């Protein structure tokens, strides 16, 4: 989880990723940030995030992102 937050902070350093749960709902992340996050997560965790996973529920918080990464790693 810490590693994930580090990755997110590298993409966008002015966001409290550890606590924020409305990253998409409040428009904190735009599509451009999302693209960078997807690319970084794909490389770091050796996964391939498909378009079907790009929904607000998966990107609203670091916790949700972590859960998605785990799920894709197990698949």
């Amino acid at each position: 989880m810490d590693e994930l937050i580090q990755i997110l902070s590298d993409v966008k350093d002015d966001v409290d990723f550890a606590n924020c749960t409305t990253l998409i709902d409040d428009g904190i992340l735009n599509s451009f940030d999302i693209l960078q996050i997807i690319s970084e997560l794909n490389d770091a965790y050796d996964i391939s995030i498909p378009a079907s996973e790009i929904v607000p529920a998966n990107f609203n918080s670091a916790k949700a992102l972590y859960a998605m990464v785990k799920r894709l790693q197990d698949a």
Partner: protein
Amino acid sequence: MSFTSIAYLLFTAGCAVIYYLIPRRAARYQYFVLLIFSYVFYLLNGPALIFFLLFTTFSTFFAARLLDRLEDGLKQLGRGAENKARRKEIRKKKKAVFILCLVLNFGVLFFLKYLDVWTWALPLGISFYTFQSMGYLIDVYWGRTRAEQHPTRFMLFVSFFPQILQGPIGRYERLMLQLAGETEVDGKMVCTGHRLDLVQVEHGAQRMLWGYFLKFVIADRAGAAVSLVNSNYLEYSGTYYAVTALLYAAQLYGDFAGGMDVVIGTAEIFGIHLDENFKRPYFSCSITDFWHRWHITLGTWMKDYVFYPMTVSSWMRKLTKGAKKHIGRKGAAILQATIANILVFLLVGIWHGKGGKYLVYGLYNGVIISLEALLGTAHPSQNRVLHLLQVLVTFILVTISWYWDFPTTLSQSNYMLTHAFTDFHLNEITGQIFVDLHFTPGILAFGCLVLMVKSLLEEIRQKSIFEQMDALPRPARWAVYYGVMFSVLIFQNNGLASGFIYAQF
């Protein structure tokens, strides 16, 4: 039947009366009222073309059910290595069904809209209902939602009469349950139907009334002048083209956003909340921001079903992986977004219709959005003066983009746009313009002023004017209603009420 006709109001009122007369114990049949009225509405508008609506409805319905069944089969097989070949086979089948349905439906749209073989009128709302249905199909294919099991419910999802002509493009997950009158009670779906709620009906009627104000007082009035210049454009100087583009900015907003208010208001009378399509677009601080506020449901459709799938596709990943080594992470993301944005906006252009002007329109938007990502200017500045400047520049950029919309051909577009700059004479900006364009500026100015005040109140308080009006005492509220109503009746352009621009897409 146009949204602006008395017939439409009577039709809606008749539908609402029958809808709310359905007793509670028959709640699960309530949606049939909407379905029957929706099909009658469609038939009244053009009976011969209903075949296409039925084709999209049933090809999507059965394809989605098949996808669901194949997915269930996949799950039953489990993850064991012994079933690998079988799993691969099912996945292949799923993909084939999905692509076939997609190609057939978009193929019909393309054939009717872009090839000159078809000489009949276009089936009404075909762009809107095709996009709505295909969004649903993709959701089922991706496993985001389960397939609808009731054919009649799905028929209503595709044909719901307020939204079929010009959107908003609805999403199955938010719309279907509302249409069917189902709510979640203790984790179980229960059909409670919709009960008559006078506050809700008042809200719906408010929205509709405001829509008519935008349409009659602003759009049709500005539209008459736009048509005049458009049909004889060689007779006017560039100054007139600049004024025309500004008038068109008012017309298009009044027409499309006004139409949306009528649509969303009508649906609200039935207790159904459609997705919003506009959020004060002329206050946007960038073209990127503009597309988050203008025709929102088309933008989010494109983002979810074209932009993201394209950016995570294997060819794009390969491309950006290579680029990352040379231009870094951020550079690669910009490249990725640029390619996807330009392609998406070319599609948005094509969606609007055939002809070079729409392609240029799409390209223009795509290129600016990419530039904004590159320069980092898509977001509002913290500095108020700079922010205001951003809004002004964006408004000018958007107004320029309309030159690839209102003229008839691309060559006319280019002619008018260049002359608006090279043949512009400040001394022509006099009252004579209004005389030449046959319109009284006072009424349009009044309409735009009311719109401006409403928009400012909403932008500052970040709350819709309709919610804000709830706080007013009843007499004040009704005074506003009467004021708007009389404005609509007095200031409408007698006999000039035209159809809606977006109904032709």
